[in-house]
């Protein structure tokens, strides 16, 4: 496999009720990525598109708006991991030598679906009984509280941190800081999780251009190397399992660390899938940033704050930046690339050399989650 690097990144601001169409939102992200990479668009050999609700031929719809037509277009759906899975397929195409330069776009317009939790398919045994994604995370939270003595206020600290980070990010859907009191007293969604502990639905797009490291030499002297990008899917288990131990993330991160030659202690910045506050705490542990059961203590000590030893979600994460499903995985890559280049503005982490992105989701009964994708990038 060839070494692959990120040449250019771009994203739209994440927001509700964008005036863009699905396609023009994707176009804005693509044009920004092309400008950032400073490449001739004609050099792009293939396009990948990740989306959940974008519909049939979503990539063609977006690329048509940019003039990038005729090339192979691959459309990818993998729930919350749709964008990151498209990115993994794009990496594979370049790493294998099939293409030298490709573009990946992720886009979603969730405002069109109205408010409230995203619909699950009623054919699902659990959804038909009343299961929703917030309830799944809430039951993880409840169990974590029982097993580890974490309080509602502890969980709220994740939202406080990520809203603070988001206040520094011009692309974030929520730009206002919140207090612990405001978080715990906001409207209850699924006990113990409140509205401010939940990621919002919204609209947004992000795009990334990658190429092989030899081609990259023509365009940049400071490429961001893709050290690993891995994909896992859920393992079906109908019996007992520890819901505070996200097994799909454990398996996927093990592969990513092995492939990259990195260890958890090497990671300087991470963008993780904080769909709800409890998730970020579980992922500190599953990604090896701290021991199992010590996530809350790690958070309380400020280890994952912008000035901590391993800042997590400097962008504001899903809770503050927002979570337009297909766009999220690529927005995470974009944030880490900005951090590694030193282009992250007021939220810049000093001297970040290696960053990790983690995107997991999909509610199917019997699975921890349906899909998980992790990338490790370095400068």
């Amino acid at each position: 496999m060839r070494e692959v690097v990120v040449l250019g990144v771009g994203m739209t601001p994440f927001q509700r009720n964008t005036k863009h169409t699905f396609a023009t939102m994707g176009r804005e992200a693509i044009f920004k990525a092309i400008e950032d990479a400073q490449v001739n668009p004609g050099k792009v050999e293939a396009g990948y598109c990740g989306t959940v609700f974008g519909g049939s031929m979503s990539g063609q719809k977006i690329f048509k708006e940019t003039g990038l037509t005729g090339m192979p277009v691959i459309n990818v759906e993998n729930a919350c991991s749709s964008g990151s899975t498209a990115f993994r397929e794009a990496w594979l195409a370049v790493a294998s030598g099939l293409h030298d330069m490709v573009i990946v776009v992720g886009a979603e317009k969730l405002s069109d679906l109205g408010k409230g939790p995203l619909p699950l398919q009623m054919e699902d045994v659990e959804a038909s009984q009343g299961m929703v994604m917030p309830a799944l995370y809430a039951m993880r939270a409840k169990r974590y509280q029982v097993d580890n003595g974490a309080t509602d206020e502890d969980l709220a600290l994740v939202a406080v941190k990520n809203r603070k980070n988001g206040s520094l990010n011009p692309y974030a859907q929520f730009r206002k800081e919140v207090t612990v009191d405001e978080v715990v007293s906001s409207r209850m969604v699924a006990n113990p999780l409140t509205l401010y502990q939940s990621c919002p639905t919204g609209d947004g797009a992000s795009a990334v251009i990658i190429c092989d490291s030899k081609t990259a030499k023509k365009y940049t002297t400071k490429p961001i190397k893709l050290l690993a990008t891995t994909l896992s899917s859920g393992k079906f288990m109908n019996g007992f399992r520890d819901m505070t131990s996200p097994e799909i993330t454990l398996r996927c991160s093990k592969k990513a660390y092995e492939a990259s030659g990195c260890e958890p202690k090497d990671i300087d910045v991470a963008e993780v899938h904080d769909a709800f506050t409890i998730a970020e705490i579980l992922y500190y542990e599953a990604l090896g940033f701290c021991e199992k059961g010590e996530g809350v203590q790690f958070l309380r000590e400020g280890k994952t704050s912008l000035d901590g030893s391993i800042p997590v979600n400097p962008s504001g994460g899903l809770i503050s930046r927002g979570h337009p499903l297909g766009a999220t995985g690529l927005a995470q890559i974009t944030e880490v690339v900005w951090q590694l280049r030193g282009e992250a503005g007021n939220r810049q982490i000093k001297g970040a050399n290696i960053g990790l992105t983690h995107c997991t989701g999909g509610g199917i009964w019997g699975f921890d989650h349906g899909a998980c994708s992790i990338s490790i990038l370095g400068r």
Partner: protein
Amino acid sequence: MNVNANYMADSLEIKEGKVQLIGSQCRKCNNSYFPSRDYCTECIGVSEMDLIKLGPKGVLYSYTMVHVAPPDFDPPYVVGYVDFPENVRVLGQIEIANDQFKELRTGMEVSVSIGLIRKEKNENPSVYSYKFIPNT
């Protein structure tokens, strides 16, 4: 038990007023499932499955009160994961008054019952299926 289930009724056995969930078990590896299935996911491919009754009692692993739900449901309602001795975990609604939610505990024993899981709404009829009742 004053009502009959009209959803997943095949997965329930009612005898002398007591309700049990019916799952299935693989003859080869003994792995158990709920709802019952024709193929074992551990053995992959052709497998011989027997129907089995779960419990009757299970243990509450975790639970939550759902306040924001899909259009066909009527929040708030309580759901929980219940572990049965056959190593099968089942998600279901918990039959409990909303002001009794605080009484729930992880690790408590629950029984199976039949109850309303979705009220008549949006021209869909009421749905009755299995529910869990805390044993006090």
